[in-house]
C-alpha cells in the first residue's frame, strides 16, 4: 500500500469551481479554524458541509487503506492517531452546530430562508432537515399539551416571532486581526457616547462585540480566539 496515494490526492472544494483546488492539509486547517470559530461565536456561522464531507471521506479512505497495514507497522499507529484527532474535531464542530440549531431553531430557519446566495447558506441540507424536524416536533408538542386546549384563537398560536430564541449578536468575543482593517465602527449600544472607531492592525488582539466584527469574520479579516 502506498500512503502517498491517499494524501497526495488533490481534493477539490467544490466540483463546479475548478480553480479552487485545495489539499487535504488545507481542508483540515480550515476545519480546525471553523471549529474554533463555531465554539466561540454567539450565533451559527455559515455551514461548510463540503469541507466536512471531504474530511469524512478522507477518514474513510485512510481507514480502508490502513486495514491492509501490518499491526506492527509504525505508520499504522500514527495515522490512526491522526484520524482520531480529525474525527474528534469534525464531531465536536458538528455537535456545537446542532446545539445552536436547536436553541435558535426558528430564528435560523427564518434567516436561512432569507438568503438567496447559496454560498452563504447558514444550514447544510442535512441541518435544514434537522432544524425543520426539531421545530415541528416542538410546535407539535406545545400543541398537544397546551395550545389546542386554548379556545382563544390568537392565544392558541405558536407565535414564532415572540417565542423564537435569538442569539445575542452583541455578545463580547476575543479576536485576532489577520488583515488590516481600518475604521471598524463600535456602535454605542448604551447611548452615552458617540460611536467609536478602531483601526484593526494585523496581528493585534481585541475584545469587542461580535456585531462589530461579524462581517470581518466572514471575509477572513479577523478570527475568533
Amino acid at each position, binding site marked *: 500500500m502506498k*500512503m*502517498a496515494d*491517499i*494524501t*497526495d490526492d488533490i481534493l477539490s472544494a467544490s466540483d463546479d469551481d475548478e480553480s479552487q483546488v485545495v489539499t*487535504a*492539509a488545507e481542508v*483540515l*486547517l480550515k476545519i*480546525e479554524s471553523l471549529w*474554533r470559530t463555531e*465554539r*466561540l461565536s454567539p450565533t451559527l456561522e455559515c455551514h461548510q458541509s463540503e469541507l466536512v464531507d471531504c474530511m469524512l471521506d*478522507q477518514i474513510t479512505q*485512510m481507514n480502508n487503506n490502513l486495514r491492509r497495514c501490518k499491526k506492527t507497522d*509504525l*505508520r499504522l*499507529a*500514527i*495515522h490512526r*492517531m*491522526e*484520524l482520531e*484527532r*480529525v474525527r*474528534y*474535531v469534525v464531531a*465536536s464542530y458538528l455537535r456545537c452546530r446542532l446545539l445552536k440549531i436547536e436553541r435558535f431553531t426558528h430564528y435560523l430557519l427564518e434567516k436561512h430562508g432569507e438568503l438567496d446566495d447559496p454560498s452563504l447558506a447558514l444550514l447544510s441540507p442535512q441541518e435544514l432537515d434537522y432544524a425543520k424536524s426539531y421545530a415541528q416536533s416542538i410546535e407539535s408538542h406545545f400543541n398537544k399539551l397546551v395550545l389546542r386546549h386554548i379556545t382563544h384563537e*390568537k392565544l392558541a398560536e405558536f407565535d414564532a416571532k415572540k417565542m423564537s430564541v435569538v442569539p*445575542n449578536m*452583541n*455578545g*463580547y*468575543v*476575543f479576536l485576532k486581526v489577520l488583515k488590516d482593517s481600518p475604521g471598524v465602527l*463600535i456602535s*454605542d*449600544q*448604551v*447611548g*452615552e457616547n458617540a460611536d*467609536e472607531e*478602531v483601526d484593526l492592525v494585523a496581528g*493585534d*488582539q*481585541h*475584545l*469587542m*462585540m461580535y456585531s*462589530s466584527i461579524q462581517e470581518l469574520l466572514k471575509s477572513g479579516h479577523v478570527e475568533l*480566539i
Partner: protein
Amino acid sequence: MEAVEEEFLAEREHVQIIPNFSHDKLYLIAGDVGPFVAGIPCSVPLWLAVNLRQRGKCRLLPPAWMEAEALAAKKEEEMQTKVFTKMGSENYMAVAQLLLTTAPHDVPNAHLVRTLIKDIWDLRIAKLRSSVAEFIKQSGRHARLHHLTPMELHSVRPILPSALDQLLRLGAAASGAHNVSLNDSSMA
C-alpha cells in the same frame, strides 16, 4: 473552549525530536513529516512528538524559549513592564506542560523550567486581572489584548465576556435603546 481543547490546537505546533529509528516520510493529512533518521533531529507536530516519546521512539528537544536562561530573562522582562510581552510561543503553557509531563528528563533543568513557567504565568495573570478590573471600572467598550495567549484568555472566559454582556444589557436598558427584557404581555 476548554483547556484540553486549547491544548488540542496547541498540539499542532511543531517541535524537534531526535528519533531512535529510521523511517520514510509519513504522509499525514496535516502535512508530510520525516523522513526519520536515527539520531538526526527532525520537526514533527507536538501530538506526534508526545506519542513517539511515550513509546520510547525518540527524545524530545525543548524549543529554545524553554531554556531556563531564556525563561529567566523573560520573567525579568515581564516584571519590568506593565504591558504583556510577546511569548516565545503562543502556546507556551501547553507546550511546556506537555513536554514536562511527558518527558521531564528530556528537559534540562526541568524543575527550574517548571517554576519559571509558573512564575511567568502568575505575573501575566495578575496583570490581566488588574487590567480587566480597570477596563470594567472605566466602562470600556473595547479592549486591546496584545500578546495574550489562548490559555491566558481561557482563564478569563467565560466570566469576562459574560460580565461585559450583562453590563451592556443593563446600560442599553438605561438608554432605552433596546428591548433588553421581555415584555411578555402586550395587548395585540
